[in-house]
């Protein structure tokens, strides 16, 4: 029940090309391949009188279609970095160019627009609206863009299909398992065809099997060309990504290509499903 077969996530080789990929391809031809360009990014907080240097000059480039895992101990600055990447926070110094837009100079409202159009968030705690159906949760980003009610529902159902939850669109979060809730959150992140999906410890609240299932979804989405940046402190989870960036003390300690990323679909077969009966 919990496994996702490839028919649920269109791989782009079918007769009908998936919406997401065609959108990205359109941009390929116009711009260069760089999705994110970050230069000497610093972020300093004021905690009372004390200055906290969360980021001390981070430079990084991410191309379209990458699957990046950001790792580091707590306090290494990776969460701050994710907040800035997600346009939830502004850098103190440095440049951040997302999809050819200089984000550091934008106003609050413009940042909201970027979050709406270009970024999909997946959080550790799922962050779904309680007492709101899966469908309505997924519809949420479209509420803040100019989409007709009909189109909004179509897109949202489509996104829920991609994560294999088309049967549960009218379920409330408390009627869904943790893995299912996280899949709703992923569907919500996908619904507006974002340039990038940012996942902050997406498997932090999940058991190991469900974690791999979630990683399987990310891998399939990445196969379709969606750029994914994932924050995790579990090397197991990071091993599914194609690139590893390690943060320490507000700086990048290492930035390596993961030459041989694990395939989640295969890993999942090796893990016995404990709660098969519960799910059924």
């Amino acid at each position, binding site marked *: 029940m919990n496994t996702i077969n490839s028919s649920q996530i269109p791989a782009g080789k079918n007769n009908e090309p998936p919406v997401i990929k065609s959108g990205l391809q359109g941009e390929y031809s116009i711009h260069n391949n760089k999705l994110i360009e970050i230069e000497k990014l610093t972020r300093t907080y004021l905690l009372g009188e004390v200055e906290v240097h969360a980021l001390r000059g981070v430079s990084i480039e991410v191309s379209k279609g990458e699957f990046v895992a950001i790792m580091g101990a707590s306090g290494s600055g990776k969460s701050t970095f994710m907040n800035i990447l997600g346009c939830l*926070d502004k850098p103190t110094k440095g440049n951040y160019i997302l999809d050819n837009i200089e984000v550091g100079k934008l106003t609050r409202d413009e940042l909201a627009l970027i*979050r709406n159009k270009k970024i999909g968030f997946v959080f550790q705690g799922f*962050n779904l609206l309680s007492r709101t159906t899966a469908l309505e949760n997924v519809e949420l980003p479209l509420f*803040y863009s100019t989409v007709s009610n009909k189109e909004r529902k179509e897109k949202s159902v489509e996104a829920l299909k991609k994560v294999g939850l088309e049967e549960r669109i009218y379920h409330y979060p408390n009627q869904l398992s943790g893995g299912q809730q996280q899949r709703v959150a992923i569907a919500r992140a996908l619904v507006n065809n974002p340039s990038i999906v940012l996942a902050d410890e997406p498997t932090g609240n999940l058991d190991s099997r469900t974690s791999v299932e979630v990683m399987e979804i990310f891998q399939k989405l990445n196969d379709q060309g969606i750029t994914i940046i994932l924050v995790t402190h579990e090397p197991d989870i990071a091993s599914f990504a194609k690139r590893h960036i390690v943060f320490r003390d507000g700086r990048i300690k290492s930035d390596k290509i993961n030459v041989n990323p694990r395939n989640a679909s295969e890993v999942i077969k090796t893990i016995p499903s404990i709660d098969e009966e519960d799910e059924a």
Partner: protein
Amino acid sequence: MKILNIILAAFRALQRNKMRSFLTMLGIIIGVGAVITMLAIGQGAEYSVKQQIASLGTNVLIIFPGSQQQGGIRVGAGSMTTLTEEDAQAIRTDCPAVAYVSPGTFAGGQVIAGNLNWATLIQGVGVDYTQIRDWDVQYGSFFTDQDVKGATKVCVLGKTVADNLFPDSDPVGQNIRIRNVPFKVAGVLTKKGQNAMGQDQDDIILAPYTTVQRRLSHFPYLRQILVSATSSKSIETAQKQITDLLRMRHKIARYEGDDFTIRNQSDLANAATATSQILTILLASIASVSLLVGGIGIMNIMLVSVTERTREIGIRMSVGARGRDILTQFLIEALVLSLLGGIIGIILGAAGSKVISSFAKWPTFITAFSILLSFGFSILVGLFFGFYPARKAALLNPIDALRYE
């Protein structure tokens, strides 16, 4: 975010906390209901006061003889023997702003009809009296000019007198005895009800003033002259013309005061109307205090709601809600609360004033004005008290809001 979607979202959010939403609305419901009811009662009071004043007659002026002064002691107004039939006649012919004139005098007395008797006031009037007081005969007819000239012993009964003397039979054409003088009943007046002072205006017998003077009061002067002006605008003019005429007729020197008093009904009418308006305003202001308290209730609940839903606000912001989207959402929630409360309050207030008017026999009026007023007030209350919490929500930092536990 389209406004319709925001309104739907607001309804959904309020639905999730039905009890709380209802209790919050209750403040507005009671406030608006109270304003509606109080305005209805106040306007009912104003209406009955106006009715009573209209029952005195329209554009009426009453001329009394002045007070007598003997060695510095002034006797009450009306004691002077200055007003005469000729004065009344002169007013009728020489004052263009005057439409009708009725000389007046009165006498009290026991009235006997068959084996029943009744003490009442016998007012001697002219035939113009029905025009001045706007008072018609219900059965039979009023006495004629001929009766006045000949001092015929005819009379017209007020409804109360007729009911008391002739409970089962038709009084028209019957004979009654007033202080042992036989009078023939020509007609019965329509019911006029109480006057502004609460006196029963139907407890009266009208007779030609000449008859009353000669047969009953034996006082050859007039106690009053009732006059009606041609229109409500000419009351002042009529008063001036009468004053000038009477001063001239009574040969009053310039430095001397009038030997008569003209009382103007419109003064009384204005005072009474003003009083009832003040009553209305007073009632409405007391009621609007509860509307204010209801508004504070909304603000309180919206503040709690913003704190409680900080995480939701964070989530909404992370998926692209702008500050103003959040502001609109919470403002609309407050507005929905206050408007819904307002509508229910208007319905309850309308029902309440109907109940009051049927139980207390007091007329109540629900005007479009009072509905618009309370509707407008509830919108204002919602906007005013909803704005601060909504703004607080809109200014939240998305990161802090997302981390809020």
